[in-house]
């Protein structure tokens, strides 16, 4: 059974860790999932869950996974935008949970955009 004591332990661990996330920190990478009606209907929820899980698994304290509304390109949903400080925004389109691990390892960890998943590559195809 999940007890509240377990949550207390998480709190103590997080408070003790130097890596407590600063959401507006200068090195924070924002991963923004489109979660309006269009995004949700196209499958944004499992994509969001996959990002959350992958970021937790790799203990990436500088990554913040969050949501936005409709950004106007509904035909490309689920859409995920990655905003890294000092870099251009990257828009990944027609996302699936399967694509998430590679974006996390290549882009979020190593700084290499996964070009084939971006809107630029999708629009050409």
């Amino acid at each position, binding site marked *: *059974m*999940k007890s*509240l004591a*377990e*949550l*207390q332990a*998480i*709190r103590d*661990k*997080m*408070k003790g860790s130097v890596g*407590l*996330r600063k*959401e507006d920190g200068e090195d924070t990478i924002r991963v923004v*999932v489109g*979660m*309006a*009606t269009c995004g*949700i*209907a196209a499958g944004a*929820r*499992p994509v*969001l*869950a996959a990002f*959350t899980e992958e*970021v*937790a698994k790799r*203990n990436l304290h500088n990554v913040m*996974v*969050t*949501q936005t*509304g*409709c*950004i*106007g390109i*509904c035909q490309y949903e689920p859409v995920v935008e990655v905003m890294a400080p000092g870099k251009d925004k990257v828009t990944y389109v027609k996302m699936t949970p399967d694509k998430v691990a590679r974006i996390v390892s290549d882009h979020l960890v190593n700084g290499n955009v996964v070009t084939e998943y971006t809107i630029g590559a999708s629009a050409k195809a």
Partner: protein
Amino acid sequence: MQELSLNVLDIAQNSVVAGATLIRVSVEEDRRAHRMVIVIADNGCGMDEETVKRVMDPFYTTRTTRKVGLGIPFYSMQAKMTGGDFSIQSKVGEGTTVTASFVTNHIDCLPLGDINATIVSLVQCNPDIDFLFTRKIDSQALEMDTRVFREILEGVPLNTPEVIAYISDYLTEQTQIIQGERNES
């Protein structure tokens, strides 16, 4: 939408935009009577009567990227096509309550789906809003209140990955208990 829990996620976004600080989601199922009632209630800015009427219209939306707003019309349709009902109560300055009921053995009734994933997504994306989620299956009930978690966390954000994992596991466990798949108390 493939499952009703996705509609819940969609409709709850309206509460987020309405500036709610507390969003209640309740799912009550009476399996013998084949009825399910889903309530999404917030303490956001609310709407006047005129606006409440207009949100049922697919050609009304507050968003600026498109001229259609399908969230409410879709959800309402999904309730009504099972022989269920749909209503919105709202008061400016007090909040909005969206109630949908479903006849669960109707052939057009969508499955509820992964409601826990919906709740976890909402907490993940809106760590500053409180969520009270209750689910009842026949006489068994579960409750998840982020206000309780928040008090224990003493400033550690609700969307900390470890906390999100805890909430997710908590919901899975509680759901198994009320569905009678687990016999712990």
